[in-house]
């Protein structure tokens, strides 16, 4: 790209905000009521872990990794390819990143050796981020004056899925060298998505971008002490 310094994020916004928001209308119409299954399963898992029943068991971590892999698969197959790609050519380039994240999470579940974090602060941040992604993020349309039919839910919608992933990654470490490596790589796709989505939302004039940027920053800050 020549004269790259003259480009701003607005130069890459190739659709109108109303068209973007209506993608979630379509997504929810197509997945209803199954769209509620992933958030419901996520909330059940969150309660299980938050009450300490699953701590420090690796089974809950494995279950989460598999659940997240399924959620990224759903986001890619239900939103990214059929809905976003027709209006945003960048989606075709992003699709392999979603595939990579599914593979990383699956491998993480398979390698085992997952241990609960020793840091209370990190654990609380992880649970808080996960709770926000599952329960509060879908309510953004109400703040924006849009219909709730445009709610973005964990699983089909990538924004809450990325935030939930960051939350879960805060909760565990892997005890094996391979697992640690996979765990570090697994931070990449959700952080990249949060950055891209925040930039898109800000360019569209939506304050929702702050939720993505804030969530990612919070996760990174909490992870800093013990490393990714």
């Amino acid at each position, binding site marked *: 790209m*020549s*004269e790259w310094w*003259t480009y701003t994020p*607005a*130069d890459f*916004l*190739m*659709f*109108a905000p*109303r*068209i973007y928001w*209506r*993608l979630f209308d*379509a997504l929810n119409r197509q997945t209803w009521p199954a769209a509620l299954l992933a958030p419901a399963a996520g909330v059940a898992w969150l309660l299980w872990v938050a009450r300490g029943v699953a701590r420090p068991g690796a089974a809950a971590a494995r279950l989460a990794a598999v659940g997240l892999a399924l959620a990224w698969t759903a986001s890619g197959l239900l939103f990214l390819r*059929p*809905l976003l790609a*027709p*209006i*945003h*050519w960048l989606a075709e380039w992003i699709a392999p990143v979603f595939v990579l994240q599914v593979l990383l999470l699956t491998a993480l579940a398979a390698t085992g050796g997952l241990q609960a974090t020793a840091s209370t602060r990190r654990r609380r941040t992880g649970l808080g981020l996960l709770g926000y992604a599952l329960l509060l993020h879908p309510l953004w349309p109400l703040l924006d004056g849009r219909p709730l039919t445009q709610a973005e839910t964990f699983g089909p919608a990538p924004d809450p899925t990325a935030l939930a992933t960051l939350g879960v990654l805060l909760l565990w470490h892997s005890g094996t060298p391979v697992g640690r490596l996979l765990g570090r790589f697994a931070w990449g796709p959700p952080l990249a998505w949060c950055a891209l989505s925040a930039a898109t939302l800000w360019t569209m004039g939506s304050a929702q971008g702050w939720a993505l940027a804030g969530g990612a920053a919070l996760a990174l800050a909490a992870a800093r002490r013990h490393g990714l």
Partner: protein
Amino acid sequence: MHPNRIMQDAGSPRLRRRALIGAALAGLLPAAGAVPPLTRRIPSSGEALPIVGLGSWITFNVGQDLQARAQCVEVVRAFFGAGGRMIDSSPMYGSSQPTIGFALAQLGMPKALFSAEKVWTGDAARGALQIEASRAYWGVPRFDLLQVHNLLAWEQQLPLLLQMKAEGRLRYVGITTSEGRRHAEIEQVMRTRPIDFVQLSYNLLDREAEQRLLPLAQERGIAVIVNRPFREGALLRQLARHPLPGWAAEIDCRYWAQVALKFAIGHPAVTCAIPATSQVAHLQQNMAAARGPLPDAALRQRMARDVAAL
């Protein structure tokens, strides 16, 4: 919100009243469309083109949204109803091409259509394939105009377009730039290659093209398409806070959008401007700028000066 609508909502009661009357008149334009729009000739052929065309960046990129697609069909219908001809798109514009193709099919492929497309790939080998894919989206037998989008791989793509023209598979060849980028390179292409069209950004605030490119286009007999006449709406949002100056009435302008368009198409080197919209009312306001008097050089200077001072 479209800047025109912002303008209708803003200003004094007198201006609001005037805007409402204007909106009502705009709704009558299909009937008034019997008055043909002003035209300019393409220098290389002498073919006349209406001075206002239709862009599709953002506005026609609606994906699978059926409601928005139907809205685009109505915009295209109103465009042809008002005497419009040139519709411009690009493979870079997401789903705009299939949306245009859908609209044209719904309208029975209007004979007036002047199809303006682009080739946009850095891979020289992909150029022909991309053009064919674009043609299939539009559903046209051939394009009237193909342009190298933002000069991307123009050394490779321009020969392909010129060859297509020589073989009768294309009527006109052009190149594009936007937002004032790579003007030196554009100038080089205009001086050395037999192109029919150049597309560039030109509006009340972005006037760099006046220095070299517009005079060169006149000198070399190259048609000029103006993109971003409203700076993607930002210019109109900025102007909406201010009442229309007195001179706007001299050139039959009721809206800032018409002022901005008449400024661009008022330049004698400009063949047409291609504002984009997804609203029929705004389309009709834009097309109304293709009628009535155009500003002369002195008034254009004043327009630019007054707007820069706002």
